[in-house]
């Protein structure tokens, strides 16, 4: 199964989370979305979003320079 990519660099929360939400119609159950963002509250917001929407955050990786990458299973 291909991992879908989402670039949310340069936008502030909650816009990255809204971009993830906008992907919902294209994501089937079990599919994985990889997101990269540089908003300081990105990880906290994504975790919060995943908890509320019952999605699984697989991992978060600090890539330096404020950049955080994560994968979410829908």
């Amino acid at each position, binding site marked *: 199964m291909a991992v879908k990519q989402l670039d949310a660099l340069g936008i502030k929360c909650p816009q990255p*989370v809204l971009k993830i939400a906008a992907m919902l119609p294209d994501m089937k159950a079990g599919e994985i979305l990889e997101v990269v963002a540089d908003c300081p509250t990105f990880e906290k917001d994504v975790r919060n979003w995943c908890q509320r929407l019952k999605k699984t955050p697989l991992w978060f990786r600090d890539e330096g320079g404020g950049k955080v990458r994560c994968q979410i299973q829908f």
Partner: protein
Amino acid sequence: MSDKTNEKNKLETLEKRVQELEKENAGLKATLEQEAQEHEKVSMDLAIGLSEAFVVLQKISQGDFSVRASEDVENELLARLGVVINRTNDALSAAKAQTQNMIKELATPVIRVWDEVLVLPLIGTLDSQRAQHVMETLLERITKDGARIVILDITGVPYVDSLVAANIAQTMEAVKLVGAEGMLTGIRAQVAQTLVKMGVKITGVETKSNLAEGLKEAFRRLGVKAIQEKQPGD
């Protein structure tokens, strides 16, 4: 007062002012932080609320009308969005139910062609679900109209297999049980051949080649004479 004392007083006044400004600054900073936190909370609530609305709309678009959007939420915009989504969902659900009812009615058009004579012309495939609906509708109409003869015309049924034949036989049996006589018309040559090849038998049911023959037989049984008017010039 010496210059030195004056300088000292000025310095003290300035120090006091600096302290006041620092205090004011700290207050403003705290207010800003609080506002930023509130702004972040509202933004996230909006983002999550919109995400939930997306999920509900996605399910509705897939034909699942059992889902409901949250209407009882703090944010008024999201609450209104929830109300609109639920109203749309209810309207779509009602339209779907209405269409299904219409299809059901069209699938079983029971026609009263004469006093005590009902005709049910079937068109299209006859699966178990439809056969069950045909039986229910027919029995209901027989009871309601006090029908004595029921003609089931299958001219428009393209395919009859053993299951469909069993369904037809059951329907005819049920017709007898409610006190009416059943008749089967319109078995096409191809269908008849298939039934013979498959060894399927529809027993205990009177059959006629077409609906006209079936009607003639029904009138004969009721003692009704059908007279054909002469055309002008005959």
